[in-house]
């Protein structure tokens, strides 16, 4: 099946896609590697973005945002009707030396990497529910690349902070990131996110992102904390923290770095960043027995 066939009613290439914007609204979202500027939004789309990202969201001043995306109108007839019963959603990605093309449910997008990070998003959606899905998927990918360009990594992980430092707990889906986050929250730790965190260098720190999993957004006193440790989370009968060889740690971090780890043209940069990270933060395996007892292990090794 060719790129986009699952989502598009006819083949589209960059040259075929219309330049028409949805509207004239411009906003910036200020988080890891940003601000991320979005132009061409319809008022209803801009309203959703403001409501979703709240204090992170500003009316843009000047043109200094390092990441710039335009939002374009594409006819609903360009997209297939999709029966979502029992459907597992994965969008199409085509990687090129200079860009990434995406096609998904109700959208087509392109991210260009030089000069600077530039996105174009075509969608037929303005209704909050469907535009939300389109925007969230696109934005997370944009953040993943921007964080990588900034020397860091967007990591599928939970991060808990206490006494000015954060533990970053990463692992496969179902390993217990949300469950462990809930225990940490109940024990008085701050939870930055139970699903996705940005790890950025100089010095290495974890930055809270508005991308939460089952736990949802929880308050925290700071958006960034120094990294106290990296813990590969895996379920076990008893709690333990065990040494993890560097190569295994690198492999495990790599599999938890979404999108970029599949990009043949940008994965070398990701590997470089992860190797740098492992030179500055300890990485260990955290055996997790699905009760709060693991938290004492995180406290004692700080």
């Amino acid at each position, binding site marked *: 099946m060719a790129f986009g066939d699952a989502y598009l009613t006819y083949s589209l290439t960059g040259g075929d896609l219309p330049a028409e914007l949805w509207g004239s609204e411009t906003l910036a979202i200020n988080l890891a590697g940003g601000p991320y500027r979005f132009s061409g939004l319809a008022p209803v789309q801009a309203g959703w973005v403001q409501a979703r990202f709240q204090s992170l969201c500003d009316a843009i001043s000047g043109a200094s945002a390092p990441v710039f995306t335009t939002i374009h109108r594409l006819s609903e007839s360009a997209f297939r009707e999709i029966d979502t019963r029992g459907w597992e959603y994965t969008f199409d990605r085509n990687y090129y030396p200079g860009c990434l093309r995406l096609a998904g449910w109700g959208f087509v997008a392109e991210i260009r990497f030089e000069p600077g990070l530039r996105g174009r998003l075509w969608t037929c959606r303005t209704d909050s529910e469907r535009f939300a899905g389109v925007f969230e998927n696109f934005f997370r990918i944009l953040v993943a690349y921007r964080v990588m360009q900034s020397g860091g990594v967007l990591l599928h992980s939970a991060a808990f902070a206490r006494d000015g430092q954060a533990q970053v707990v990463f692992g496969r889906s179902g390993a217990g990131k949300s469950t462990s986050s809930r225990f940490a929250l109940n024990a008085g730790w701050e939870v930055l996110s139970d699903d996705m965190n940005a790890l950025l260098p100089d010095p290495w720190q974890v930055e809270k992102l508005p991308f939460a999993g089952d736990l949802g957004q929880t308050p925290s006193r700071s958006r960034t904390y120094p990294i106290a440790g990296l813990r590969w989370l895996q379920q076990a009968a008893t709690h333990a923290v065990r040494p993890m060889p*560097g*190569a295994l740690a690198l*492999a495990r971090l*790599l599999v938890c770095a979404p999108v970029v780890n599949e990009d043949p043209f940008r*994965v*070398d940069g990701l590997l470089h960043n992860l190797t740098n990270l492992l030179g500055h933060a300890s990485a260990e395996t955290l055996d997790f027995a699905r009760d709060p007892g693991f938290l004492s292990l995180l406290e004692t090794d700080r």
Partner: protein
Amino acid sequence: MSAISPPFRLCADIRYRQIADEGIVLRQQAGEVLVLNEVGARVVALLDEGLAPPGIVARLAAEFDADPGRLAIDVAGFVAELRAAGVIEEEACS
């Protein structure tokens, strides 16, 4: 099977990194990451340098003070596994 051991190269979708004495092989098309121990990492590094299996055996025998006969068997087996896994391919003749 050829009696001459050809040089190999990493397949196009493979990324290899060494960290301390160990290595990781990322197979992008398969979405897999393999972790290699010290000797496995050294074999892949030497393959990536362009050495054919006999040259690898000679280098490992010197580096690890190991029996070349035993090493030749182990290296041949490991190289076969790497080929079967799509990590390496024969270098094309020019």
